């Protein structure tokens, strides 16, 4: 085994002396395999895939001996070919029905090689053809054919209305002033809440419960102010409850909200 390997080794370093230098010229491992195959000077239909695999693996070995950096794809191909080689040499394992036989794998590789060769040949043939601007010419003085155009404009009613809307939006936007809404601020709400708590009689540490509703000005006609008052006073209550200044209670959803001051905590 060692002997034969050495022989092939010598053959290869002789035959493929130029190959190592030409690695840059290959478009990938299949391209390189194809070149090796062509060197066998045989029709690809009759090529020995096993020989080809041996040559390729030898080449990869040499490259690693010389510490050449091989692209990953060359190593992947080497691994695949090593596997193929073992499948071709070892007796068939009947139990592994799912896997392709070595012969099938070799046929697939042969097909790959033939197809790539066909495409490379086709590319050459294609570029051997007379090419426009190199071998044949089209009209040099091609003049623009005149076209008299009757324009027909298309527009939908929606476009028209949308545009008019846009104009009006733009005009309003140019006079835009922020609207001043009449709202109850958080500070005002807090003041109102504290004032209400102060007026209430105390029991121990606590004052009497009062409803959130009672804190909202019932005379107020501005609905927005009313709604903001509810929101602000409740939020002020939550703020106060956070540091223990008051307690909030609601017996059930949608029932009145009660609040009372916690005097001790408020004082401390």
């Amino acid at each position, binding site marked *: 085994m060692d002997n034969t390997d050495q022989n092939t080794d010598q053959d290869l370093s002789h035959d493929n002396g130029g190959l190592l230098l030409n690695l840059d010229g290959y478009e990938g491992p299949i391209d390189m395999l194809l070149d090796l195959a062509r060197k066998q000077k045989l029709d690809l239909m009759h090529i020995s895939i096993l020989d080809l695999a041996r040559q390729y693996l030898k080449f990869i070995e040499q490259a690693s001996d010389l510490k050449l950096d091989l692209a990953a794809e060359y190593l992947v191909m080497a691994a695949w070919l090593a596997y193929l080689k073992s499948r071709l040499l070892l007796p068939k394992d009947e139990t592994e029905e799912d896997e392709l036989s070595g012969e099938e794998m070799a046929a697939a590789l042969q097909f790959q090689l033939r197809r790539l060769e066909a495409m490379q040949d086709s590319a050459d043939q294609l570029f051997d053809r007379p090419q426009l601007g190199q071998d044949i010419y089209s009209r040099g003085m091609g003049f623009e054919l005149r076209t008299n*155009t009757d324009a027909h404009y298309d527009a939908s009613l929606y*476009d028209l209305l949308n545009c008019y809307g846009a104009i009006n*939006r733009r005009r309003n936007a140019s006079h835009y002033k922020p609207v001043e809404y009449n709202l109850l601020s958080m500070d005002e709400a807090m003041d109102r809440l504290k004032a209400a708590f102060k007026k209430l009689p105390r029991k121990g540490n606590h004052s009497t419960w009062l409803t959130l*509703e009672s804190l909202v000005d019932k005379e107020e006609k501005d*609905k*927005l102010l009313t709604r903001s008052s509810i929101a602000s006073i409740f939020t002020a209550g939550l703020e106060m409850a956070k540091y223990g200044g008051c307690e909030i209670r609601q017996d059930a959803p949608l029932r009145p909200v009660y609040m009372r001051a916690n005097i001790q905590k408020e004082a401390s």
Partner: protein
Amino acid sequence: MSADSKVDISHQDTHKRIVEALLFATSEPLSIDQIYEYLPENADAGAAIAALQDEYAGRGVELISIGGRWSFKTAADLSEHLTLQRQEQRKLSRAAMETLAIIAYHQPVTRAEIETIRGVSTGRGTLDILIEAAWVKPGRRRDAPGRPLTWVTTQGFLDHFNLESIRDLPGMDELKASGLLDKSVALDSALTMGDLFEANIKENEDE
């Protein structure tokens, strides 16, 4: 001798073909000297041109000389056939569409008024396009200093937009309702949204 003259003829034919291809493929008319650059030494460019001129006489393409330079040109009598009448569908520009909308809603309206409403000056082409499309036409002159021309929409405008009359254009209210004129919606809708404190508000409303 007869064999020689045959070769001559075939050469002459090749030279003629070269001149033909050359004059076809170059982007400028060529002088005799320029043509000779492409021919073998023994060639007769003059004979080739004369032969071509004969062959092309009366065809759709003719070989003519312009200031001593040679060029193929399409026959003059075909020029009208080489001009295409084309119906083209075009999209109206935003400026044109806005101008049309303003004329439709505010007619009769002067150009100055259109510009005031749009907030930008109207380019020269904008009204032209609308006139070309036959959607607007000049109306009466305004009884005002300078007697400016007003613009109104046409029957063609109504036809295109499938409107019975100009009054059928949706009014401002309808535009608002459709969302086309809406500005800020956020806080207004707060008033009509579902209520957490329904009782409260009802109480307020009752009073």
